[in-house]
C-alpha cells in the first residue's frame, strides 16, 4: 500500500510542473534602440547652369542649393560636407578643372551652410583630385527633422580661348558624420 502511494504522489508533482509555463494574463517586453551618428544630403538643383551677365568676358556664375540632415555623436562627434569634380568639363575645347587651357582658369565657389553647420571659409577652388570643403560640424550636431539648407555659389573663369558650345561637368557632394 505504501509503495503505491509514493508512486502516485511523484506523478502529481510532475504534472503540476508541466502546467507552470510562461503564459500569464500579462507580459512585458523591453523595447530598446541605439541611436548612432547619421548623415544624408539632397542636392536640390539637379543641373546648375553657369551664366555670364554680359558679353565682356565676365566670369560665369551659378548656385547649387542643397538640404542636409545630420546627427553627430554627443561629446566627440564631427561631420563634414565636401565636394569633388568627379567628371571634368566635356567635350574638349572649353573649360577644364584638371587641365585648364590657360593657367589661372579656375572653377571656384563660396559656401553657405545653415546652423548647426559652419560654412567653408572664403573662396574654395574645386578639384578633380581631392575633396574640398563645403561645411563642417561639431559634436552633438543635429539638424531639423526635415533637414537644413545650404548652397554653393560657383564662379568659372570666362577665358576667351574657350570655343563656343555647351560644356558639362559632374560635381559630387558628400556628407559624413561620426
Amino acid at each position, binding site marked *: *500500500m505504501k509503495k*503505491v*502511494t509514493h*508512486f*502516485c504522489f511523484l*506523478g*502529481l508533482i*510532475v*504534472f*503540476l510542473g508541466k502546467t507552470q*509555463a*510562461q*503564459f*500569464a*494574463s*500579462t*507580459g*512585458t*517586453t*523591453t*523595447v*530598446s*534602440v*541605439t*541611436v*548612432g*551618428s*547619421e*548623415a*544624408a544630403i539632397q542636392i536640390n538643383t539637379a543641373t546648375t547652369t553657369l551664366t555670364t551677365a554680359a558679353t565682356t568676358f565676365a566670369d560665369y556664375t551659378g548656385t547649387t542649393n542643397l538640404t542636409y*540632415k*545630420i*546627427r*553627430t*555623436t*554627443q561629446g566627440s*562627434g564631427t561631420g563634414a560636407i565636401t565636394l569633388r569634380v568627379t567628371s571634368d568639363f566635356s567635350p574638349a575645347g572649353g573649360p577644364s578643372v584638371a587641365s585648364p587651357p590657360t593657367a589661372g582658369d579656375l572653377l571656384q565657389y563660396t559656401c553657405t551652410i545653415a546652423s548647426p553647420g559652419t560654412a567653408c571659409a572664403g573662396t574654395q577652388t574645386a578639384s578633380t583630385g581631392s575633396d574640398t570643403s563645403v561645411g563642417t560640424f561639431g559634436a*552633438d550636431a*543635429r*539638424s*531639423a*527633422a526635415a*533637414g537644413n539648407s545650404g548652397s554653393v555659389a560657383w564662379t568659372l573663369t570666362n577665358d576667351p580661348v574657350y570655343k563656343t558650345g555647351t560644356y558639362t561637368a559632374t560635381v559630387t557632394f558628400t556628407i559624413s*558624420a561620426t
Partner: protein
Amino acid sequence: MICQCGRDKHLRRWSVPVALLYAATFVVFSCSLSGQVYGYATQGVSVQLVSAGVLSVPANLSLAAAGSTFNNFTGSLTVNYKARTTPSGSASLTVQANSEFSPSGGPLLSNGDLTFTCGSAGLGSSCASAQTVNTGVSRTIVTVGSNACTGGGGSCSSSDPASVQLSFTLANSPQLKTGAYSTSLLFTISVV
C-alpha cells in the same frame, strides 16, 4: 485520487481541488501493481470550463535601422496566446507603454514616434491599421469573439498557442541625440 490497493482497501479521499487536478492525469499515472488481484471502485468526475486567456511575449525587442541615412528603426515580435470564450463572451489582446523612452534626449512616445502594425491572428481578428504606442493608452492587437478556443482545429484555432506578429516602426529623426534608449511595453489579455 481514490486508491484501493493491496491489503489496504480503505477509501482515501483527497481535497476536492487536488482530486479534480489528479483526475486529469489518472490514465497516465496509474498505480503500478505487482500482479496481485485488487478490487476497484469508480467515481464520475465533472469539470465546468470557464472563459480563460493567457499570453506570452519575448522579454526584449531591439529596433535597428538599415543604413545610416535616417531610415526608420524597425523590428518585430510574436505574441503567443491562448483563449477560451463563452457563447456570449469575447477576449482582447492589448498593449500600452509603461513609460516614455529613457533616458531623455531620444525618441518620444508622446510625439507618436513608435507605431506598429499587426499580422494575421491565429485566433480572432488582428488590428487592421497602424497603431501608435502611447503611455497609459491601450491599443488593441487582437479581438476574439464568442465561443472561441485555442488549438484542435474545427471551431477552435488550428494552432496552440495562437500567435500574432507585430511589426514596430520608430521614427529616426536627426533631432534624436546619440545613445541607447528603452521603454517597456505591457501586453494584456482580457476575457469576459
